[in-house]
C-alpha cells in the first residue's frame, strides 16, 4: 500500500446499504434482541421452576404418605434445592460480569477467556454438580417409596437404574464432546492471542525508532 491515507479515504467513502434497509435491519435486530431476552428469561424460569416444583411434589407425597417416603422426599428435595442454587448462582454471576465495562481489548479477551473457562469447567463437571444431585434426589425419593411398600419391586428398580445411568452417561458424553470440539480450541486461541499481545508489547517497548 503506497499511501495509507488514500486507503483510509477509500475505506470511509465506500457505499453502504440503502437507508430503508438500515431501518429494517435495526428494527429486526431490536425484535431479535427482545425475543432472545424473553427466551433466556423463560429458560431460566423453566429450569429453576422444574427443580422447585419437583421438590414440592416430593414433599407433598412425603407428607401425605409419611414414614420412609417423607425421609426420601426430604433428602431428594435437599439435592434438588442444591442444583437450583448452583444454577441460580451461575446465572447471577454471569449477569453481573456482563454488566462490567471492559475498557481495553486485552481486558475483553481476558473476560472472554474466563467466561469460556467457566463454561468449560461447568460442562466438564456436569456429572458432579448437575446429574449426580438430580439422580440422588430421585433415587432418595424412590428408595423411600420402596421402603414404605410391603413388597419392593426390584425389577422396576433395576430397569430404572439402568435407564437413568444410560441417559446420564449420554448427557455427560455429549457435554464432553462439545468441550473437546468447541471450547478447547477457543481456550487455546484466546490464550495464544493474549500471549501474542503481551509478547508484541514487550518487543515493541524495546524498540527505539520503530517507523
Amino acid at each position: 500500500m503506497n499511501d495509507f491515507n488514500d486507503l483510509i479515504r477509500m475505506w470511509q467513502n465506500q457505499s453502504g446499504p440503502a437507508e430503508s434497509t438500515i431501518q429494517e435491519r435495526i428494527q429486526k435486530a431490536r425484535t431479535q434482541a427482545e425475543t432472545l431476552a424473553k427466551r433466556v428469561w423463560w429458560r431460566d424460569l423453566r429450569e429453576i421452576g422444574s427443580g422447585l416444583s419437583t421438590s414440592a411434589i416430593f414433599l407433598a407425597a412425603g407428607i401425605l404418605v409419611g414414614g420412609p417416603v417423607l425421609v426420601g422426599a426430604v433428602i431428594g428435595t435437599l439435592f434438588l434445592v442444591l442444583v437450583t442454587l448452583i444454577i441460580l448462582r451461575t446465572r447471577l454471576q454471569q449477569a453481573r460480569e456482563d454488566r462490567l465495562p471492559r475498557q481495553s481489548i486485552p481486558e475483553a479477551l481476558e473476560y472472554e477467556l474466563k467466561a469460556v473457562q467457566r463454561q468449560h469447567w461447568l460442562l466438564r463437571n456436569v456429572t458432579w454438580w448437575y446429574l449426580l444431585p438430580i439422580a440422588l434426589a430421585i433415587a432418595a425419593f424412590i428408595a423411600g417409596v420402596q421402603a414404605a411398600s410391603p413388597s419392593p419391586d426390584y425389577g422396576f428398580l433395576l430397569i430404572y437404574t439402568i435407564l437413568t445411568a444410560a441417559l446420564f452417561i449420554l448427557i455427560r458424553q455429549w457435554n464432553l464432546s462439545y468441550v473437546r470440539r468447541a471450547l478447547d480450541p477457543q481456550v487455546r486461541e484466546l490464550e495464544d492471542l493474549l500471549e501474542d499481545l503481551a509478547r508484541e508489547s514487550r518487543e515493541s517497548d524495546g524498540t527505539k525508532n520503530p517507523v
Partner: protein
Amino acid sequence: MTLYPMLWRLSGAYTTGSDREDLIQEMLIAIWKKLPEFESRSKLTTWGWRVAFYTAMNWRRKHSRKGNDEPLEAALSAPYPENPAADRLEQVYRALRHLSELDRTVLLMALEEIPRNEMADSLGISENTLQVRLHRARRRLAKEMKRMET
C-alpha cells in the same frame, strides 16, 4: 462515522456473503443489549464500534472451523459495494480476512480513524507500541495484497 456503514465495513473484514449479514445482525443485537450501559464518556459511534468489534472477534472464533472466506463467486455477488473502487476494496477486505487478529484489529481502527490515544487505550498499550504495531500491520497488509495480485 455513522454506525451502520461502519458495521458494514467492519463485518467485511471478518466474513462475506450471507455470513456478513448474520454478523451485522449480531453486532446490532449486541449494541442494542448494551445500550443501557453507554456512558457519554466517548462518542456513541466509537463505543458502538468497540461493542461491534468484540462481537466480530467472538463471532470469528466461534465460526473459525467453518473457514472464514467464501468462494470467489459469492464474494463477487455481494450486493452492496458498488463504486469504482470496489475491486480494490474487495482486495483490501480479502487481505484483512487473511491477516492475524492483531494486525486486523490495528488496521481496522486506523481505517476508521479512531484517535491514536483511544486506539492505544483499547489495546492496552502505549502509543509508541501502537506505532510499531501499526507499521508492522500496514507492511503485512501490503504484502498480503501483493501476494493476492500474483
